């Protein structure tokens, strides 16, 4: 489903991604782990075409992302869901309007159908009754849930979550991680989550990739990673 080959990216001479390759099969939930500033979010943004790589190839659902024009990218992104670290809900729209926005933009659904679908997705993230509340009136965890519903509402085939538990307390972190896992499996979408929270990562991941200095230094299941001989992986696991 998602295949990345030899992707490199530098910013102002600073190499952030150094020939990264990975493959995530359809329907799988993968976690990208690593210290802050190791390029996890940058890699995620490459997958949805927000950043173009200096070198390499990114194939998502059979589409070579780097060959798409800006207008083609807008079409391509309709089948993708992206959950931002800071949620990125429109603060001038209510929660319901935030969810309805992509439906109004890209579908021919009637107002009643949009209302029904918004209600269904809010229920899916356990957020019934917040349709008319603005993001500023919601707590951090509630905003995260609404943002997750917005990311999925176009029946996304791919869900990319950038640090979904950052800034949340341990209980909310666990709840959000579990929700992502449940929704990913329920909808069947291929999901990639970036995090430096090892506990939650292993709780939800089918497979994990560990990034260090712009490279993937290890990958596998929890058991495989714990058995890894890679020094960084051992240090990273011990510190969690």
């Amino acid at each position, binding site marked *: 489903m998602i295949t990345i080959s030899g992707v490199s990216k530098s910013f102002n001479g600073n190499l952030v991604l150094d020939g990264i390759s990975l493959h995530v099969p359809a329907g799988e939930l993968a976690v990208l782990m690593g210290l802050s500033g190791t390029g996890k979010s940058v890699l995620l943004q490459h997958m949805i075409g927000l950043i173009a790589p200096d070198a390499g190839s990114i194939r998502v659902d059979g589409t070579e992302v780097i060959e798409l024009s800006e207008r083609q990218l807008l079409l391509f992104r309709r089948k993708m869901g992206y959950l931002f670290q*800071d949620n990125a809900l429109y603060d001038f729209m209510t929660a319901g309007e935030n969810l309805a*926005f*992509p439906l109004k933009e890209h579908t021919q659904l009637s107002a009643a159908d949009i209302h029904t679908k918004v209600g269904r997705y809010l229920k899916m993230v356990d957020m019934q009754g917040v349709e008319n509340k603005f993001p500023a009136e919601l707590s951090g965890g509630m905003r995260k849930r609404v943002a997750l519903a917005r990311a999925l509402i176009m029946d996304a085939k791919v869900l990319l979550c950038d640090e979904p538990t950052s800034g949340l307390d341990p209980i909310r972190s666990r709840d959000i991680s579990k929700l992502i896992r449940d929704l990913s499996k329920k909808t069947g979408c291929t999901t990639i989550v970036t995090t430096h929270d090892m506990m939650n990562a292993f709780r939800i991941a089918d497979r994990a990739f560990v990034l260090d200095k712009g490279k993937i230094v290890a990958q596998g299941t929890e058991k495989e990673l714990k058995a890894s001989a890679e020094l960084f992986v051992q240090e990273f696991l011990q510190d969690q």
Partner: protein
Amino acid sequence: MGILLRYNYIMFTVLADMIAALGRSALFLGDVFLVVLRGRVRWGEVFKELHVQGVQSLGIVMLASLASGAVLAMQGRVMMERFGAKEFIAQMVALSLVRELSPVFTALVFSGKSGAGIASELATMTVNSQVQATRTLGVDPVEFLVVPRMLACLIALPILVVVSGLTGILGGYMIGVGEANIPSSFYMAQTIAAVGYPDFFCGFVKMFFFALLIGWVCCYKGFSTSGGSLGVGRATTQAVALSYILVIVSNTILTKFIIAIGGN
């Protein structure tokens, strides 16, 4: 020698940065024109922006214009009474307002209020990832966020300038008739006689140009923000300061140009 080299290097870097920023802002304006030429204008959003930029600016523009028209008449009265020509106050007020003061004054007020609003809104949306989110939702942020704001500028500012001109003339009338004891009908007749088509043309050209500059600068500055809340503050300040400078400088150039092509 070392100091000279370092100075040259700094100057070169500053110049290169300025050229690069100019290039980026020109591309940004190109994107805006492309969206408009493709007919992808969201008129619903334009009307929402018109309310924010136009209707909500009416009060401050009218107050400022009324005061400036009145002050212009007060100062004009002092000078013209020395030459026994106080009946020309109406002409002086009307001409000054229509040709110069209303377009420039309103543009400056508009930059400070609506321009700052545009820049800070877009800058906040940029640093909070809402602009990126628009892209991930498959929507062009220039089409959704920038074009409505720029078109609203182009519609709202000319209307505000007309309102400003009329309110300024009213301010002058209040002083001319109320204090200088010029007969009301004479004052009105002098005002109407003073302003001809070339004067309206001069004002119209300027206000559309100013509207484009303010919309462009404020949207671009907001859209190219980075650096969190500090960046929002910086972008807003720069947008307003740059708008002021561009309005004042371009006014001089436009005035020279309009006079050269025979616009008096």
